[in-house]
């Protein structure tokens, strides 16, 4: 990389997170507000690492009841039957629709877990000051941001199953407590991805190069 590359922060500039306008704050400790859009300026998102850790730890805790508790309770002729998320996947697989079972497995089990692991890895690598594979780590962050919403799938499946199958006394489906925890996992991981500042990935590389120059 040539010496002409420098970040806005190194040049003493703040890019507004809302409108992208570059400003040169007089006092770096108190950057003030964006002259164009009025948003509070920050060199990096405030307490990004701490907030993201807190949110993914909360999500990881919610992930346990989300999988252990039933998401749907099916009552056929008066006898209730519990369905967890994995139970739903197995039911779909057993009933012959394995492509759907795979979609639900990816959306409900692999994406939330993958998100937690990916964000934890990004946080640890930033805290250790890693300078390796920055581009790949940024791409990983963008992927987490992009596919995270898909884990909401099972919440919608539960909602529309409950809404349609109300054929008392023949058969009825009611939501279980698991669905609330599952929704909490999705919301918390989405907020965690929002609070993480991808520019932190590049900061250790920038500061190391600055020291060498």
């Amino acid at each position: 990389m040539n010496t002409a590359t420098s970040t806005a922060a190194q040049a003493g500039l703040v890019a507004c997170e809302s409108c992208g306008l570059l400003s040169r704050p007089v006092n770096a400790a108190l950057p003030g507000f964006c002259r164009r859009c009025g948003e509070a300026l920050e060199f990096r998102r405030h307490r990004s690492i701490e907030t993201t850790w807190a949110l993914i730890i909360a999500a990881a805790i919610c992930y346990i009841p989300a999988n252990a508790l039933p998401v749907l309770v099916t009552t056929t002729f008066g006898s209730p039957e519990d369905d967890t998320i994995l139970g739903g996947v197995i039911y779909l697989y057993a009933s012959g629709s394995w492509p759907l079972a795979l979609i639900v497995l990816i959306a409900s089990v692999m994406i939330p877990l993958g998100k937690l692991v990916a964000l934890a890895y990004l946080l640890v690598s930033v805290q250790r000051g890693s300078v390796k594979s920055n581009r790949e780590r940024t791409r990983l962050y963008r992927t987490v941001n992009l596919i995270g919403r898909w884990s909401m799938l099972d919440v919608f499946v539960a909602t529309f199953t409950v809404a349609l199958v109300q054929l008392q006394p023949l058969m009825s489906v009611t939501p279980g407590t698991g669905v609330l925890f599952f929704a909490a996992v999705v919301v918390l991981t989405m907020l965690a991805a929002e609070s993480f500042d991808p520019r932190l990935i590049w900061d250790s590389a920038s500061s190391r190069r600055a020291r060498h120059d």
Partner: protein
Amino acid sequence: MNPRMVSAPIACPDCDLLQRVPPLPPAGRARCTRCGCTLAKQLAHPRDLPLALTIAAAIIFVIANTTPLMGLSVVGRTASTTILGGAYEMWLQGEQLTGALVGFCAVLAPAGYLLFMLTLLLATRRSPAPQWVGEILRWAHHFQLWSMLEVMMLGILVALIKIAELATVDAGIGMFAVGALLLLFPAIMVNFDMRDIWERVEWADGDIATPGAPATPAVQPMP
């Protein structure tokens, strides 16, 4: 577009690298040289096309939310639901928070996104656009993140296939309307350029973003 505006340095939102975006060809895109993030795009119709698409989406959105998504019949009993009906049923069954979240992600967030887009696209038809357009733009951005129509559609399909074993399920008009929205929402996002709107908005400190004026008076020439 004034070439001086285009060549003003910008910082990559993902890696903070300072760089200049060269004048782009029509339908061109500029990517960050370091991390590959899309920095700028040049659209042929940056405001008219998204406005047309947003109006179309708003009309179809009303249809999608007022007509039944699907109907179900088993041994002479029938049931049907709309999107909000699904969220409300969740609420009634004791999962108020989940019901509210579903209602937000499937109805309120896309509705808010369309409403804010409509407002800001109409307001930016004259330049400079009033300052509140910036606030609306921020809200549109937040609501876009939480609008999950595509996830909802897949969720409905999975639910339908699960139920199809027990009862006869018919897709309603609402379902086709949601299908059309799945094409219109990404079309709006692809044909919309946030930077173009910001360049037309009146500045918070009272200055007016006149075309040709340097976008960032505080910026010094790059080394």
